[in-house]
């Protein structure tokens, strides 16, 4: 068959693309659900290569592997989403950086971009004395409240 493109190495190229894009997403993103999506994509890349090998060798052993991969991926999806839900309930966010105290002991902490803290100057309130007594005035009060 001439002009054929659906060859083994082209299937492998598509599988490698899926796997590589999945690795990039897995490493770069911070949302736990997105990391899980990228892992699913890497599994798909491997499955596509296995199916291509099965076709190349005319043997459906590769397809059997893919059947088992899909089953284990379904298990992984259920467990991963349960864990994500649990972590979300504990921390209130899907950000993976909130769990960085699980890192190795000698690794530096990942510091988010610092948000400058708002400096709230507490205003000077007048001090009240119990009723019926002459308020004692000190100098700062008289400076601050010239009307008194």
């Amino acid at each position, binding site marked *: 068959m001439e002009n054929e493109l659906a*060859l083994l190495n082209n299937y492998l190229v598509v599988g490698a693309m899926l796997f590589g894009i999945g690795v990039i997403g897995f490493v770069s*993103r911070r949302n736990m659900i997105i990391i899980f999506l990228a892992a699913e994509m890497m599994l798909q890349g491997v499955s596509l290569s296995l199916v291509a090998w099965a076709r190349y*060798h005319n043997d459906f052993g590769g397809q*059997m592997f893919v059947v088992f991969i899909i089953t284990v991926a379904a298990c992984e999806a*259920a467990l991963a989403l349960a864990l994500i839900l649990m972590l979300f309930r504990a921390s209130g966010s899907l950000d993976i950086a909130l769990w960085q105290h699980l890192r190795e002991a000698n690794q530096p902490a990942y510091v988010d971009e610092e948000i400058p803290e708002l400096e709230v100057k507490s205003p000077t309130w007048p001090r009240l004395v119990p009723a019926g007594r002459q308020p004692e005035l000190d100098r700062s009060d008289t400076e601050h409240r010239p009307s008194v």
Partner: protein
Amino acid sequence: MINWHTCFFLLFATITCAFAVAVVVSANVVRMAVCLIASLAAVSGLYFLAAADFVAAMQLMIYVGGTLVLLVFGVMLTARGPFVSMKITPANWLMAGLAGGALLILLLCAATSVDAWKTAAVAASAPAAEGGHTVAPIGMALLGIRVDALEQANPALRGGIAGYLLPFEIVSVHLLVVLVGAAHLARARRRRRPAEAVPDASRSA
């Protein structure tokens, strides 16, 4: 004369890779899930082209129908206000692109380096799986019988060709245990203390 096999391969491969890139680049979680649905559906099209019809149907049903619905439920259960996107610095993209890109280049070089792989299939000696009727052989193999290997000429090899009954049972029990465990983990439990401690390591570090 148009080779439809090639046309559909190009179509599905393009859809797969384009939506995979969209999954990684997109900022919205729901949009990412929809892109992943499109990408996985195109992968199942590639499975159909590779004469793996049972696997392709399984992919459509389990991934596109099941896993991603579960995923969208996860997104909705954890939604808080408008879907917040975590900030990724360009340095993060650079590091991830370097690491993943190096691996990608390595894999692409490996996939295109062998000349013998530039054929669709080896010479069809046992055309059992050809033509895309793989449901019956896969079902029999899960029961422990390899129908394509029954007429193995070499009797020394015949004993080594077993089916997949034991892995099938193991994966069944595994699925059961994992689903029970996931339901146990994700159950809504009563809160004992009014305010739980929030680990806020990134702010305090």
